[in-house]
């Protein structure tokens, strides 16, 4: 059994309670928001390719979306690497396991695309999107867990 305080929690230094949102208290960069924006770009690109895959349409719109997603992901990691007072240990533990899970999922999807006969530039763009997806979702999960964790966790 565990004991849960029923009083309203306060910010650090106000009496020993944990902060409501450690991320806000520590002024962490908007990693989760940017990662969701990256996910939106990937999903839109995926929908475009899925809709136009058999019509032989241009892959240029999907390439533009993929490049934008990669740039956003790189900016996100750069901002996160400068974060201080962050629960890095918890971030790494959650990130490692979720990365494993999403690499397996992305690998299965990649296999299905190849199995279904997707080739050439379409396959290259889809592979890039899957790679960004497999990195971006663990980033969202690990960051969200770590922002509510204590630095020592």
């Amino acid at each position, binding site marked *: *059994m*565990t*004991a*849960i*305080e*029923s*009083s*309203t*929690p306060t910010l650090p230094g106000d009496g020993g*309670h*944990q902060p*409501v*949102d450690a991320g806000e208290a520590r002024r962490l960069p908007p990693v*989760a928001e940017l*990662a*969701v924006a990256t*996910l*939106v770009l990937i*999903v*839109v690109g*995926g*929908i475009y390719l*899925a*809709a*136009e*895959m*058999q*019509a032989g349409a241009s892959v240029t719109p999907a390439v533009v979306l993929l490049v934008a997603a990669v740039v956003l992901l790189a900016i996100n990691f750069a901002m996160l690497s400068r974060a201080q007072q962050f629960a890095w240990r*918890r971030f790494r533990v*959650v990130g490692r396991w979720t990365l494993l899970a999403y690499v397996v999922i992305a690998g299965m999807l990649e296999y*299905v695309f190849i199995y*279904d006969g997707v080739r050439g530039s379409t396959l290259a763009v889809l592979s890039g999107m899957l790679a960004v997806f497999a990195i971006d*979702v663990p980033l*969202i*999960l690990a*960051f*969200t*867990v770590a922002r*509510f*964790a204590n630095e020592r966790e």
Partner: protein
Amino acid sequence: MAQAVHEATGPPAGAPVDLPRPPASIVPLRGLPFAIAVIGGMVAAIATNAEWALDFYHVVGGGLWTAIDLFVGLVVGPIIGSMSIPARIEFSTRFMPKMALIMPTLVTMTLGAGWQLARHLGNLAPGSVNHGWLVASYIIVGVMTVIALGVLEPANITVLFELRKPRPNPAVIEKLMKRFIYTAGITGAMQIATLVIMTRIATQ
């Protein structure tokens, strides 16, 4: 309203509330063999292109996914919202680990079998009478993917980690649980649109 209920039924401020600890593992390990068996069956259905099996996986998975989403969002969610915070936490402790296993399994079997079924039936072709409806369903799944992976799953996992702490912070749990309430309307609308699209596709 929720605060009023909490004040009326909850313990006095500062008083510790005894709650059951969540299991040591975030995902219920005893359920994993069932999830693996279901996904394994779906892989076999796709590999053999067996139409009945693909139909079964898509219809059963989709039906359960839609029903659970609507039931949790529109029935269970408001009930949780009216509970005291300790009661919400106790419910979440038992409910969320199971959802962390059930929902990804249902979504995988629905989408995996659905895509292969559409390919098998020729609905992916641009000239198909169902192509437009399929694109609409991609957009709906896309919106639900962003909500599930970008908003709900991180909240779910974070709540489970918070509950494992020696002194879980109820404000953190309440803040994250609100995400489920805020997104219930969007998810419900998307699921109803899915029902319309899928019944159109099946009868064209």
